[in-house]
């Protein structure tokens, strides 16, 4: 696979490939399908040139939000504003938004070049202009030599890159990506992920990316919008989202968390016999609660008298993840692999908290629907 070109191609520059990022505001969007509320008063502002990812489990409303933004669905109530202008009643055809779909959406009857030039043809550009610009965009995604091929002659990754070039060709005000990587194998997915991010930054185009893969969302987006049951749980930068989740749902859904029952007074909790401050910013919980611990929030020390023992061990290269059974509670702990190598299954250890504070959530069950 060819990397994204670093040097601008003739005629292709951030100024003439993208019309410049537009600001987007989704305001109180409600969309129901029968009794199911896919969007429940969704409100979100997206800055010009920002890359935002909608992340959430199946059925959380992320794709519906994208489709409402694209104009494929009309909201029951609420507005979509692009650069301050209400486009809620504008057809998808006239919204100037490029979209890359989950399934390969190339037109099978057209060559790669014709696919990329399709949007330009709809804009009544001359044949020469179309061919030149489509060729440039194919160069941009590293497929200049595939122009005369047909979609069925390309691999999945190549097809999605053509779809990306086709979406960019119309100089969209907003680029919409609906799980474009989910049908690809892991290696191609990682390559294309980098390529999309580089192109987005280079063209400075406002981009909305829908995914259920947290790794994709965290590695690509400027901000991640975690959704559940049609509403937003938290919108934050990837590091904030991971390190400072404000709701138990986010803590559970983003990254790995172990739930440890504690008694909370709203300020402090005692975990493994150790006093820890409760993280501020979330809902204050008093009484019986659960502490949500990241694997890196916990350390273990080999101790034959320790109240935990290792039940599982997974090697991840630099780190090794241990599952330590403490009473009834399995706790995941990340250790350096050189230290983890000496820790055998069944070994007794003493866990301790190394995070400066911990997130405490009410003990009510938080069920994260599985993507599988």
């Amino acid at each position, binding site marked *: 696979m060819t990397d994204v070109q670093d040097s601008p191609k003739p005629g292709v520059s951030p100024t003439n490939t993208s019309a410049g990022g537009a600001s987007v505001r989704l305001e109180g969007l409600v969309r129901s399908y029968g009794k199911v509320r896919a969007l429940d008063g969704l409100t979100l502002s997206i800055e010009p040139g920002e890359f935002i990812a909608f992340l959430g489990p199946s059925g959380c409303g992320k794709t519906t939000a994208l489709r409402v933004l694209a104009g494929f669905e009309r909201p029951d109530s609420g507005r979509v504003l692009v650069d301050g202008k209400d486009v809620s009643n504008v057809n998808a055809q006239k919204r100037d938004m490029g979209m890359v779909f989950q399934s390969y959406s190339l*037109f099978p009857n057209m*060559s790669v070049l014709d696919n990329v030039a399709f949007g330009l043809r709809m804009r009544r550009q001359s044949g020469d202009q179309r061919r030149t610009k489509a060729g440039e965009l194919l160069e941009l995604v590293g497929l200049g030599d595939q122009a005369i091929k047909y979609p069925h002659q390309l691999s999945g990754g190549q097809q999605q890159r053509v779809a990306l070039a086709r979406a960019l060709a119309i100089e969209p005000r907003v680029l919409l990506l609906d799980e474009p990587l989910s049908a690809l194998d892991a290696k191609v997915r990682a390559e294309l992920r980098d390529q999309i991010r580089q192109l987005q930054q280079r063209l400075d185009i406002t981009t909305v990316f829908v995914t259920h893969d947290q790794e994709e969302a965290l590695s690509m987006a400027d901000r991640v919008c975690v959704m559940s049951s049609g509403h937003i749980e938290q919108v934050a930068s990837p590091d904030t989202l991971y390190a400072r989740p404000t709701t138990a749902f986010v803590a559970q859904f983003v990254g790995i968390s172990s739930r440890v029952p504690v008694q909370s007074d709203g300020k402090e909790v005692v975990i493994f016999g150790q006093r820890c401050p409760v993280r501020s910013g979330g809902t204050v919980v008093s009484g019986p609660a659960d502490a949500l611990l990241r694997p890196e929030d916990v350390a273990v020390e080999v101790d034959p008298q320790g109240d935990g023992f290792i039940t599982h061990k997974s090697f991840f290269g630099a780190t090794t993840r241990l599952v330590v059974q403490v009473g009834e509670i399995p706790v995941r702990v990340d250790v350096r692999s050189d230290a983890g190598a000496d820790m055998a299954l069944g070994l007794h250890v003493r866990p301790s908290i190394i995070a400066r504070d911990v997130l405490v959530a009410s003990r009510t069950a938080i069920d994260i629907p599985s993507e599988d």
Partner: protein
Amino acid sequence: MVTVAESYFFENEEVGPGETPVKRRRKKYRIWRLVVLVIAGLYFLAPLYAGFRFALQNDSGKFSFWAFSSLPSEQGFSAAFFLSMRLAIFTALVELILMVPTAIFVHLRLPKLRPVMDFVTILPIVVPPIVLIVGVLGSAPLFLKESPYLLSIFYVVLAMPFVYRSLDAGLSAIDLRTLVEASRSLGGSWIRTLWSVIMPNLRAALLSATALTLALVFGEYTMANLDGWTTMPVWIAQFQQSDAHVTLAASMALLVGTWLLLSLIVAADRSQSRRRSRKAGTR
């Protein structure tokens, strides 16, 4: 590889030297397939052979092309042929104009209605043509009664089951929703999307729908006869009393003509695909 079920099934059978049970079973299936093929072939080909043989004989039973060569000059043949041709083309056009948007609409917007459509489009098959034509002839306005194109309206109804099914299969084979949405997001109007994106990807379905419509119109007798128009089947039935050799020659010519037309359509489609692939450098 022999599955557990197969090994169980064959474990008590005698197996010849060098022959595995699976091989033996496959051989048995091959023979049965051949038998079925020969019986089906005879069923279809025997009447055709008899027909051609009769059409290629003169009154004294000797081999002759006379019946075929005299066809164009027979009274009423050309008129009947061109009337059938006009009706076939008109019917196919109306059929496609009506059914293509309907099938697309059902697939895109009302997918839950597909089982209902399946049922509704079967109705023309279960309602006898004579019921349709007699009722309408009694109540149709005069200008329609005087036009042969009244028949086309019936033919559209009669061909609907075949055309709808053909289109339904074609639409099910493509990711219609994504293609339409991709086209719309790129600025394509509905008409442009239909013409440039959907129709080219439905080519095979459109061709088969057209071919089935043409074949149906060229073979329909009851309605045309009751409506008083001499289409090809009506002419064949009428002329049969004058000369059976000529009418059979006409039937055979129609059959071959329809078959040639279908072959040409399929060949044109294949040649276009091949050209496209060659252009793309794969063949």
